[in-house]
């Protein structure tokens, strides 16, 4: 197994479980299950013992490996500089080993099969892929400056689609030159990679690269930070070098200049950093610039933000497999409660998976009355509508 040589170097000190402030548990699987075995240190020690034959492959062992959301909190807070960068790589390598030995949890196998057969985990036919765009007058990519790559959750999940439509509508309004692949778009493969199916990831990456190259794509805008991560950092290994941008990185330079009229009522917003934009790619600034550029939006930070952000629990394939599971100690519900404590009306997100996970968490916490999950495009569009209504009311009063 790759990275096996670092497994015994974990000292079990537990910094990996915490944020910088130490205020509470910041590793989603440890937070949920609480046994030491579900912490990053637990995984290190168990993997070593498993490789040595001391413990056998079991459902429990699989659950321990696959409940990791790959959020990167452990990498950020581990205090051992000489191997901390490879902690997640070691966990991924452990899952690769499970794949190689053919001993996978049923839910994971099912996920891989769906991706292999359908190009998406929802088992939907390719014709369904671009249906989110119906009525928006969005063109199929051809000589546009950017390809807008939507991804599986943004294409097929109901909550994700809502976000996709908002982002696409806003980009159109801001005159961003973009087109989509529609039915020809397939999974980016980021979760496949993290879940250990290296071969399938390579297949997806190469297929995407070929599609992009044939279409003459140079610049890609992704909806999901997960796709952003895979295309920016892993596709170059397979010959796919594109300029990859997360959609907030496009919006950041345009919203401020647009001169939108906004409603008079201010809006208190707290921002949830997506792991694949934040900890994995070190961009904590851009989404806040976008939110800050929307007139009337006041950003309040949660206690855990930026490098200390608590993952929504949807990473590492858990958005689809739900091996991490729900309940009051699930990270999505803990995060929803933390967001509500700030007094914000909106929990802003920049990832369709986070949107869905946190939306569901707010429902489970029965907090729909006081807190809504929205992405920056949804916020902006809603405020434009409100401004129009205010304007119309003012006009009719003056008449």
């Amino acid at each position, binding site marked *: 197994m790759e990275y096996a040589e670092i497994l015994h170097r974990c*000292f079990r*000190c537990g*910094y990996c479980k*915490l944020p910088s402030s*130490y*205020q*509470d548990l910041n590793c989603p699987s440890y937070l949920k299950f609480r046994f030491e*075995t579900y912490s990053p240190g637990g995984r290190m020690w168990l993997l070593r013992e498993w490789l040595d034959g001391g413990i056998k492959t079991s459902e429990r062992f699989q659950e321990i490996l696959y409940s990791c959301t790959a959020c990167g909190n452990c990498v950020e807070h581990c205090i*051992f500089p000489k191997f901390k960068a490879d902690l997640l790589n070691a966990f991924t390598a452990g899952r690769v080993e499970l794949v190689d030995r053919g001993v996978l949890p049923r839910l994971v196998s099912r996920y891989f099969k769906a991706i292999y057969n359908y190009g998406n985990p929802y088992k939907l036919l390719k014709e369904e892929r671009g249906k989110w765009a119906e009525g928006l007058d969005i063109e199929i990519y051809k000589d546009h400056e950017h390809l807008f790559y939507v991804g599986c959750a943004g294409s097929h999940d109901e909550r994700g689609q809502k976000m996709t439509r908002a982002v696409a509508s806003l980009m159109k309004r801001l005159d961003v030159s973009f087109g989509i692949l529609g039915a020809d778009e397939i999974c980016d493969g980021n979760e496949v990679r993290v879940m250990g199916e290296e071969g399938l990831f390579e297949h997806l990456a190469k297929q995407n690269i070929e599609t992009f190259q044939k279409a003459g794509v140079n610049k890609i805008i992704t909806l999901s930070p997960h796709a952003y991560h895979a295309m920016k950092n892993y596709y170059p290994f397979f010959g796919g070098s594109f300029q990859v941008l997360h959609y907030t990185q496009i919006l950041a330079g345009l919203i401020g200049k647009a001169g939108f009229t906004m409603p008079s009522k201010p809006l208190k917003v707290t921002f949830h950093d997506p792991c694949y934009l934040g900890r994995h790619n070190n961009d904590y600034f851009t989404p806040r610039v976008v939110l800050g550029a929307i007139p009337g939006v006041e950003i309040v930070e949660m206690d855990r933000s930026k490098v200390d952000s608590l993952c929504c629990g949807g990473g590492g394939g858990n958005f689809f497999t739900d091996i991490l599971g729900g309940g009051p100690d699930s990270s999505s519900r803990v995060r929803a409660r933390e967001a509500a404590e700030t007094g914000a009306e909106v929990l802003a997100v920049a990832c369709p998976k986070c949107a869905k996970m946190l939306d569901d968490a707010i429902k489970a916490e029965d907090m729909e009355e006081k807190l809504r999950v929205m992405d920056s495009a949804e916020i902006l569009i809603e405020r434009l509508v409100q401004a129009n209504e205010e304007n119309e009311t003012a006009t009719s009063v003056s008449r």
Partner: protein
Amino acid sequence: MKDVYQQLVSIVGPAYASNHPEERFFYSRDGGTMEPREPDFVVMPKTTDEVQQIMKLANEREIPVVPMGGGLVLSGLSRPLKGGIVLDMKRMNRILEVNETSRYVVVEAGASQGMLQAYLKKHHPKLKHSVPDAPPIATIAGNVLIHGSGHLSAMGGFHTDMLNGLEVVLPTGEMVRIGSCSTSPYWFSRFPLPDLSGLFLGWAGTTGVATKIAIKLYPNRPFNDVIIFVTEDPEIVPDVIHRLSGVAVAEDILAWMTPKPVWAHGFQMLNVNYGADSRRELTLKRDLLRESVSKYIDEKVGGFMPLPPDMKKRFLEAPASTLAVFADVNKGGGFEYVGGIMPIELFPEAYRKGLEVASKHAVTYSLGARIIGLGHCMMFFYAYAFNRADEADVKRAQQALEDTNGMVLEMGGIPWKAEAPAQKQIINKMHPPTYELMNRIRAVLDPKGIMNPGNWEVS
């Protein structure tokens, strides 16, 4: 044993009771050198009531129970030497009460050091507790129960000295309150009642399970500084400690001696941390500390070293995260230490003999001493790093630790949170009626001998 598992599940719920090989493997060992010992079950209670139910079951069925906090003791005290149940207490982690005026906090036994630090910083920024140099996931209760010490120990003594009260579940399942909380709604002190806390402090979990604990809080001063006295003459260190601590302004005095970095080799460094409410007060305290050791500065056998800002920042950090990094010196994920509690006059001998042991066993070492109270005693630590993947290296460290325990006892010190074999060494040196009294007390509290058996035992 299957019915025991089912009963544990019915007490804590299926999610928090395990007899899986994965948990049995992980909870059989800690980060130190002691041999693994597998539990039959690992259980995570959420309430005192659940702990009571578990203890009643264990007592009835005569199943060993080992309470565990952060699991960071390193000397193997939470290994279940005779199997049974490991009680992982970390789900009981609420901070229950902070009394700002009388400066105390009441927490559940699984609350971590880091969690309390963050809570105080946010809600009571003028207060702090004494933070040990264990990682922040270490529990407050676990550290107090083993007689820990920390960043306010020069001011407040052992963490046990900072204890105001306890809630404990006895091995037979009854819950008792110790200290003022037994008689009053306030957890302000252990006194003036008969001090029963001694029945549970330093016993390595052999007398009961602490479920709540109250500790003293201290002023968190806005201005803080550290100065470092350096000498290469260990003979003067006891007097230097005596003088520095005698000024009674230091919050923490910590000696450290390591072969690396190279510039530190052969020197004895004494970090003195202190705080103040104003810059003027801080300067005054610094001058008082400097003045107390001016004799040695004048004689040119010691002095205060200049500190670059990044180094100063590191020395003001609590806990000092760099200490755990020592575990990776041999690229091997392990270190363990002997903490010898001893009078400060033993410093030169403790230092010399530490070097001898390290040299004899060819182990990577780091030595140091935390001063307890106004120089009333010290916890002299001998830390040895080892490579967990190299059996011979682990064995070397183990031998060095064993020799060190013997050496500490021979000098007149007592190993702190001693491994089970070192406990036997202590018992062998102990006044026999004292050990007999310990056994009589334990027999009363734990008639069936279920609490962490194998500890504080001769055989």
